[in-house]
Structure formats: structure tokens, C-alpha cells
């Protein structure tokens, strides 16, 4: 299987769906000649022209509002926020219009749109260009939230997101764009709402997403040499959340650690832990369930400060060891 980057996987998913379905189009800032702030849409303007690779003014509110409007009348827009942080400028059309139209209108409307959101820290972009806001989006009924951790998942999930009849927020981690992975050349898709066990284990379950999957896998592999068996579960879709896979894993391992980059307070780790608490898996727990999340701070600029604000491999390793030795 050929190896391509996460960036190329997202690009290929959009290009292939636009070739297959003429109602799919892309809109956003600097997505044309520039190729998008992270180069994801490079070359697409030349193939599809300015109507289907529609470069917009810097008007996030209108971009998301327009995507919702186009979707309501049968188009399948993909709207790109240059940085996930900017979705805060456009929560109104997302939360009040796109998410609610179907319900509010008695099941008669569908809003098949995708909102691509490059998020996460690690680039020195500081507080307003580094956030992980997926928990905010998960709190709105009517929206799906997807967060791929590999090139394979990114392509397969984005294809499903584009074909999905609901508004889907597609969270891309900026540090993953350069990461390569095996992606088949033939057509495939990955259903939304289905988790994947990225690494099997029996001593402890880590539920994690996005860039933290890569970090957790590195820790799992390192600890394996010491005979510590960590299972890494990647929900891939945060809403709807595949609690069944998570619960089964916890029933097997008896221990749960949830790792995410988003800040701890109100973060989705709490949702995962609550779901396990409410399930039969609670009785299988050997230790308290734990969260390892971003600190409750805005992302700082300085390299060391920035790294300290979100979980790193060493933090994950230390937390796993602490749980396994009952020291928390």
C-alpha cells in the first residue's frame, strides 16, 4: 500500500468526492492559488475552477452560514476554517442554523455540510491559533464531530463525512499534516461513529484521539518491552461516540485513562468517563478512571511553555505507570 501524508489524504478525499459528485464544492479563505494555509487544497483550483473551489473574503460567519444555506437546498459544501479557533466567529450558523434546521422544521430539511477545522497546538502559533475546541462542538445536538489520527482514517472518514446528510465538523490536527501512513489507492470509506482499537492490550485502556493517538501508541510500544500491556482506543468520531467499544475495552483491562489535548475542564474525557461509570464496565474497574488533558490555560507562545500546556509522551507514560502502581 502506498504511503501518503495526512494532508494528502484529506486532499485526495475532497478531490475524489468532487470528481464523483458535482454537488460537492469547497469554500474558504486562501484555498485557491495559495492552496490553503496548510496546503491541503493545493492544485484543486486548477482542476475544478473558481466556482467549486470558491475562495471567500475573510468572513467566517458568512462562510459557515453560506455552507448551511447551500446544504439546505441540496448541495454538499465543504467549508474550511483556516484555523479551528475561527469557528468561534461562526458558531451561530453552525449551532443555531445547521444543527437545528432538520429538527426545528419537523424532519423535512437536511444539511449535508462538512466544516474542516485545523486545530491543535505545537506550532508556536499561540493562544488564538492553537486551540482544540471539539468539546464545545460535541455539546450541540445535530452536529457530528470527527477527529482522525492517521492518513488512512482521515481519507476514509472525510469521504463518509462528505456523504453524510448531517453537518459534520472535521477536526484536523496541524501537527499530523506531515505524518505519513498507508492509504489504499482504491475507493474506501470508514463509517462515522465507529472506534478503532489502534493497539491491543490487557492492563489498561487509553481512549484518545488526534495527535494524542500517536503519542499514546509510542508509549504503549515502549511499555510493551517491560511487559506492560496498554490498549489504545481511538474513537475517531467523537459525536456520536462509540461507547460500546470503549466499554468493552474497559471491561477487559479494568483500567481507563482518557487523554486529550483540549483543556481538562468540560473536556470530552469527562464524557467518556461518565459513559463508563453508567455502564456495567464500572464493576470491572480496578482503579479510578483518570483524565490526562490540556492544562486549563490558553496555549502559550514559548516552546517550553507550549509543550507544558498539553500532554506529552512522558506525561502519558508517567500517568500509565501511576495508575498501574495505584499512585494517583
Amino acid at each position, binding site marked *: 500500500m502506498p504511503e501518503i501524508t495526512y494532508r494528502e489524504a484529506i486532499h485526495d478525499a475532497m478531490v475524489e468526492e468532487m470528481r464523483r459528485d458535482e454537488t460537492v464544492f469547497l469554500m474558504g479563505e486562501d484555498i485557491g492559488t495559495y492552496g490553503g494555509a496548510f496546503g491541503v487544497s493545493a492544485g484543486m483550483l486548477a482542476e475544478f475552477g473558481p466556482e467549486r473551489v470558491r475562495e471567500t473574503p475573510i468572513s467566517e460567519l458568512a462562510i459557515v452560514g453560506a455552507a448551511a444555506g447551500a446544504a439546505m437546498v441540496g448541495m454538499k459544501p465543504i467549508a474550511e476554517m483556516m484555523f479551528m479557533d475561527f469557528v468561534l466567529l461562526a458558531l451561530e450558523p453552525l449551532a443555531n442554523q445547521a444543527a437545528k434546521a432538520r429538527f*426545528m422544521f419537523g424532519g423535512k430539511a437536511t444539511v449535508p455540510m462538512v466544516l474542516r477545522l485545523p486545530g491543535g497546538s505545537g506550532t508556536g502559533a499561540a493562544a488564538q491559533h492553537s486551540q482544540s475546541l471539539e468539546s464545545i462542538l460535541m455539546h450541540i445536538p445535530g452536529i457530528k464531530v470527527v477527529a482522525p489520527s492517521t492518513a488512512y482514517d482521515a481519507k476514509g472518514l472525510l469521504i463518509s463525512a462528505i456523504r453524510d446528510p448531517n453537518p459534520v465538523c472535521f477536526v484536523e490536527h496541524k501537527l499530523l499534516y506531515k505524518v505519513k501512513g498507508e492509504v489504499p489507492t482504491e475507493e474506501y470509506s470508514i463509517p462515522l461513529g465507529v472506534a478503532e482499537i489502534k493497539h491491543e492490550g490487557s492492563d489498561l485502556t487509553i481512549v484518545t484521539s488526534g495527535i494524542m493517538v500517536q503519542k499514546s501508541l509510542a508509549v504503549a510500544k515502549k511499555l510493551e518491552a517491560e511487559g506492560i500491556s496498554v490498549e489504545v482506543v481511538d474513537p475517531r468520531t467523537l459525536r456520536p461516540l462509540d461507547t460500546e467499544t470503549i466499554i468493552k475495552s474497559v471491561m477487559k483491562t479494568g483500567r481507563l485513562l482518557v487523554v486529550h489535548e483540549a483543556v481538562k475542564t468540560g473536556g470530552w474525557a469527562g464524557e467518556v468517563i461518565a459513559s463508563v461509570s453508567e455502564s456495567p464496565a464500572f464493576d470491572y474497574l480496578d482503579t479510578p478512571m483518570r483524565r490526562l488533558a490540556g492544562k486549563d490555560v490558553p496555549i502559550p507562545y514559548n516552546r517550553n511553555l507550549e509543550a507544558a500546556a498539553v500532554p506529552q509522551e512522558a506525561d502519558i507514560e508517567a500517568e500509565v505507570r501511576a495508575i498501574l502502581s495505584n499512585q494517583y
Partner: protein
Amino acid sequence: MATWKKLEFDNYETTDVLAKAKELDLSNDNLLEMYQTMIRIRLFEEMADKLYALGKVHGTMHLSAGQEAVAVGTGFAIKRSDYLLNHHRGHGHFIASGADVGKMMAEFLGKDTGYCRGHGGSMHIADVTANNLGANGIVGGGIQLAVGVGIAIQMRKTDQLVLTLFGDGATNEGIFHESLNMASIWDLPVLYLCENNKYGMSADITRVSSKLPFKDRALAHDIPGYYIDGNDVLAVYEFIKNAADHIRAGKGPVFVEAQTYRYFGHSKSDRNLYRTKDEIDYFKTEEDPISRFRNLLFTAGILDEKRAGEIRQEEEVNIDKAVEFAENSPEPDVTKLTEWVYA
């Protein structure tokens, strides 16, 4: 009313209905149908108010009595194939675009037979299958959706347009400028209709707006803008028709601001503390859109007291039937509460 009509309208007041109808290619039947639709809206709103007073309406509502000429002039000037994005005071526009008053009334009472099966209420009446993309509870909510609907129409190369309605208050939302700018740079088939009823809830629009009329803001985005008398139904028809022709010719968006007045309060919590009884009475006696049109039709000999009485009676029966249908309709099934959260 010293401050009233201090701005000049772009339309000439309709004084000779026969001459105007000829110019606009409207038959006497068309004129009578327009009149009857205005009566239907007025009676619908008065009945809605009555039902609320009787405690039969669960939520609030925003009544449009006094603004019927904008709804009817517009509804008759655009096509059923055009898309409609309504504002929260939208009953009149739905009725003028051909909506079933029974289904509207049922939605009002939260019934399963309502347009939104009791899930939306007065503020969210929609009929997507009939290109009615819904009333909106967010001020300016439809203005942003209109850009996307315009893009869809343009990409499909159809003869449609999207009509987005909003009040004077919405012009002070940031989305107003983002939307007009986008529609202008891409020549989108969007008809912006600002229904200026003088107040954004309680805020006198002259107090909260830097410059009037709002058409100047459209002109700033290189969009043709007009400020017209929204209580002159044929003037509304004429300007919306011309705007629609301009848009269908591929020349891009048009902005029309129709000056009108609402008789009821903003919503049911309104005690009219921000305006005088004299002002309300002035509009009801001197500017009422239905009386003005009726007088013109009387003068032209198209309508007389007898026929006017019959029309009113027909519509009273129509509205009574709507209420009966709504009251006899079943409640939504509570066990299906989550059915439409996701498609």
C-alpha cells in the same frame, strides 16, 4: 408625526390603481386576490392574538398586522419556484406565498399536523419541499443562509432567486455586511428585503443606526438599493418585480427597504412603553395598508362595500376552519422526541 416621512421614498405613491395595474400588467382579479390575501393575513394575526389571550399558544409570537402590503406585494411579485428565507415576524409572508393557514395554525398550537409537526412553533414555520426555507429566530439568521442558496442557484444555472427577509434591526448585525459583500462580488441571485417597521423590539431604528435609509449600506457594497413605501402594496409589487427581473437577468443582488409599521407589540411581553398611543393611532388611521388599498379599489370601481364584506366573510370562515383544524389535530408523539436530531 414630525419625524415621520422625513426621508424621501423612491416610489411614486399609487393614486390611480387602474393606471398602475395596467402598467404592471395586473388584472382586476389579481388586484382583488391581493386585497383578499391582505385581509387573510390581518385576520390570521388577529386570531393568533386571540388564541394567545385564551391561553392556547404555548410560546410567544411576533405578529405582522400593519405590514400586510409588504408581504402581499412581495409574495405576488416572486415565483413559487423561488426560495424564501423568512424572518421571525413572518406569518404574512408565508400566507402571501401560498401557505396553508390550517397547517400554520396547527404549528402555532404545537400540533402534529403543523408545518413543523409542532417542533418549531410560530418562529420557525418552514416548508422546505415548497422552497420555503423557514422563518428564523436569530435576527439576521436568514441573511447568511441566502448566500449559500444563491451559490446553489448560480451553480445549477436555474432561473430561481432567493428572497431573504429581515427587519430594520438586522441591518446592524455584522452578518449583514458579510452577506452583502459576498453576494455582490459573486453576483449572486439574492433579493434582500428589509422590512423596516421603525423598531427593533423597542429600539427606534433612527436612534441605533448611523445612517438612513439602509439602502445606502447596499450602495456601499455596489448593490442597487431602494427605499420604498411599504404600505403601498402596488409600489412594493413594482419594486420587487423589477428587482426580481434584474436578478434573473444575471445582474446580481438587489436591496429593497420597505417602510412599514407594526400594530401589535414586538412579542407578547411588549407593553408599548417606547412609543405613543398617538403614533400607533396615526398609522392605523392614516397609513393602514389595507384601508389605503381598499380606498383605491373603491375609487376605481373594482371593489364595493358588498364585495368587500363578502371577502371579509370568506376569510373569517377560512381562518375559523384553520383554527378548527388545528384544535382537532393530535399532539406530536413524545416517544419520538429525538427522531429528527440527525438525518
